[in-house]
């Protein structure tokens, strides 16, 4: 067991150096139920060992099953090794779990062939654990941890509707992957997904004419909803083909030079709110709203002081837990 501080500090220092097994062990611990205490010590330990640990860019990749997301990621990895020799990336791939046994088959590694003993790419699978939203309940914390070690953290999820796009909430940039003439965009438009991703990928563009017609169809769909897009400019659309090895360099280049970051404080609050809603429903949200004003003000204040990323999730979770326990205790008394 790993409960003494010494072991944790050792694990963290090895993990920060990019050692794969320590990273893997820490992730398993994060993926364990009731891990708040562990997370607290983990992130404190990271903070004390490496106060200026990096904050990798998070890239969400979602799309319908069969859109070729894994193959695309495999090809991205291959190019990444050549094009970004001094950078490191991690991938978290989320696959659905069986609703009978609870077990899962996680096959996404199949498409990603990595060089042996290379520490520049780290791949981790995660079962969805029957959660709605396409994310695993621990994905967010895993990503937060991986960002401290890797320059780029990719999250791959199967997205089929509004719920599954929640990957964009924890990504700096999120892509929606489609197939040529899949007709996805019409469905997506109906469900309001088109406004969410920062960029689009039409994958499997093995044939020029098919690719182009899909491109123009998507473009006109996006123009149609342009008015409701936040900055009213059209998001970029990439045409990629793993077979013909086309468009992937451009996509990678876009990611490597992407400079906009989402406000991590807002991300943290959103995650906190989601967790509260999952665990305590509207009752919990009601409690949270009481402290929300404080937290929110604090976040905004820190942000204006340039103190981005300072918002402490574990601290807020603890505060909320004690608040809600009090509330529940009161309710019981009444």
């Amino acid at each position: 067991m790993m409960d003494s501080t010494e072991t944790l500090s050792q694990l963290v220092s090895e993990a920060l150096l990019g050692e794969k097994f320590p990273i893997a062990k820490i992730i398993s611990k994060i993926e364990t139920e009731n891990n708040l205490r562990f997370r607290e010590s983990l992130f404190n330990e990271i903070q004390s060992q490496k106060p200026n640990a990096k904050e990798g860019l998070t890239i969400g990749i979602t799309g319908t099953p069969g859109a070729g997301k894994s193959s695309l990621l495999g090809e991205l990895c291959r190019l990444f090794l050549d094009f970004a020799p001094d950078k490191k990336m991690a991938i978290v791939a989320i696959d659905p779990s069986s609703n009978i046994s609870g077990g899962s088959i996680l096959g996404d590694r199949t498409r990603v062939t990595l060089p042996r003993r290379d520490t520049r790419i780290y791949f981790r699978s995660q079962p969805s654990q029957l959660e709605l939203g396409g994310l695993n309940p621990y994905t967010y914390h895993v990503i937060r941890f991986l960002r401290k070690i890797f320059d780029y953290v990719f999250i791959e999820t199967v997205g089929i509707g509004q719920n599954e796009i929640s990957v964009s909430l924890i990504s700096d940039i999120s892509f929606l992957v489609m197939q040529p003439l899949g007709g996805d965009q019409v469905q997506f438009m109906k469900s309001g997904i088109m406004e969410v991703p920062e960029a689009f990928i039409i994958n499997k563009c093995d044939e020029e004419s098919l690719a182009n017609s899909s491109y123009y169809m998507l473009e006109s769909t996006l123009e149609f909803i342009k008015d409701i897009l936040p900055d009213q400019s059209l998001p970029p659309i990439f045409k990629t083909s793993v077979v013909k090895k086309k468009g992937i360099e451009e996509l990678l280049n876009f990611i490597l030079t992407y400079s906009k970051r989402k406000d991590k404080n807002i991300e943290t609050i959103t995650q906190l709110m989601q967790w509260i809603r999952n665990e305590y429903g509207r009752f919990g949200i009601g409690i949270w709203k009481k402290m929300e004003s404080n937290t929110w003000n604090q976040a905004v204040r820190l942000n204006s002081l340039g103190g981005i990323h300072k918002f402490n999730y574990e601290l807020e979770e603890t505060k909320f837990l004690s608040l809600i326990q009090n509330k529940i205790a009161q309710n019981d008394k009444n």
Partner: protein
Amino acid sequence: MSAEKKDYLLVDENGQGKPDKPWIFRTYAGHTNAKASNELYRKNLSKGQTGLSIAFDLPTQCGYSSDHEVSRPEIGKVGVPINSLEDFRILFDQIPIEEMNTSMTINGTSMWLLSLYVALAEERGVPLEKLNGTTQNDLIKEYLARGTYIYPPKDSMKIIVDMYEYCLHNIPKWNPSNICSYHLQEAGATPVQELSFALATAIAVLDAIKERNCFTEDEFEQCVGRISFFVNAGIRFVEEMCKMRAFTEMWEEITKERYGVKNAKYRVFRYGVQVNSLGLTEEQPENNAWRILIEALGVTLSRNARCRALQLPAWNEALSLPRPWDQQWSLRLQQVLAYETDLLEYPDIFEGSKVIESKVKALKEQAKLEIQKILDMGGALVAIENGYMKSQLVKSQTERLSKINSNELVIVGKNKWTDGIKSPLMTDSDGGIFKVDPKSAEQTLGVLAEAKTRRNAELAKKSLEELKQAAKDGKNLMPYSIACAKALVTTGEWADALREVYGEYNPPTGVDGQKLFLSDDKVATVRGKVDAFTKAHGHRPKIVVGKPGLDGHSNGAEMIAVSAKHSGFDVIYSGIRLSPEEIVQSAVEENANVIGLSILSGSHKEIAKQLFDELAHYKANIPVVIGGIIPESDFEELKKMGIREIFTPKDYDLMSIMNKIIDIISVEPALV
């Protein structure tokens, strides 16, 4: 004086009694190195074998030279290693290739092996028209069941069409490909699936040839006539005989209706058979002798369903490679059947049987529906790429295993009448099995190194460049491959050149969404333990199912992956042909609780060693279990290396396997 005509006799045009000629007797053979295999072939031919069936080792099949690191554990294990023309010179030494009917069981590299054969013939001054034989070259079954593919489906099909074009003009008696449904049955196919998938494959090949439009109408008919099949005969021998009759009738219909073949000679369903190895048991292996005999009857008993060539496995194949004596015993069975019995003296003995006719009709109807489904999807290549056929096979296989597990399917000596006296056949000093001398690879590597130093390096390089360019330009690759063969290019160099152009294929594993049909007490027990594990550790147990090396027989790995999910594990399964390094990397990154390896090629000791070396590199103490055809004599050594549990074909009960695995990891200290 002419004899009275009798319906029950086969007679010649003069009315004289004239039994059929027997089928070709083959033994699928090859091991160690070219020299040892050459000796074996010459001995077999002197024993009355009438054709050669060459087994190649896995590196040769997957397009790697013996000096590639991935080849090392596999050299000469399941067949003969062939690196360059030099090995063919040794392999066919003193064997008159112009008189042989040579079958080469090779797929991904079939063009290369045929090129070597052509180069050898030209060197010996044998006219190519005299060459007679078959290159298996059925890539579809490789993607589905056997796993020795290299290139993506479309490029593989292009290579097959190249060979048809070349052969018809240059080696007219050669069968450039052989549609092989054999492995489909091994992978769990039902008779209907065997019929429909094989015929859909043949349609895919012929459609591709038609599309190239390289033949006149007459030539195309001849080409249809060259299509041959390689079929499996299972233990349900009446059904299997009906399957063969259905094949014959359906092929007649397809060639006539779809391709308009006028000459009846070219519409004949030509096929060879190897009887089923899947049903052979490790328990009471002597029972396999009877199974083999019964399975052979299905494809020999009646004239309308009689194969053209037959090869029988050996009684002890579920244990390990057969010894020469074991193969001889199988050959003798064929000779008894053909020469001692009256089998060949009669016309078809089931003609007019209501039972047979209606069974054939039913099989045909179902198979036609299935073929139509595949054609509607866009044909066999599409049904491969979208994973349809693979998932259908995995489904049939899980159903079959569920039935064995629940004793609905009786297997004598395995799940019924399991008590018995140990076979005296196994008590010889060699333990009843054959092992390849681990030092024999040196000779192969020596020949390879020498060929490389002796050859004209410039010429080898130039011919490889020309091959690559031809592949880019979409030209017929046969002449360029033959030029490579003559320039002493190696198997690995040939395959790499085309890998550069075509890339390497990575197919769907077929396990997604599969269910086991098991819900008995054993399942409940295992799930209970999985729940306890999950409570204790805070997360589900995680298993990496690894299929290392070049052996592509993935059924075992797939069944374990599906069973583990059924038990509640999180399963990482990434398909076949992984290096031990890749498997360990997965297990480390995923922080798996256990690694389960599946190895059937006999290279378990070498691969286990590589795996533990790699685990040591990461300082990862992850428990490892192994399953496959592993002789008991290797158990101790494997356990000493650190293997926690060994599963062999005897362990067919999936939930017992899962039970052992969950027990092993439940007593492990929490990994963190």
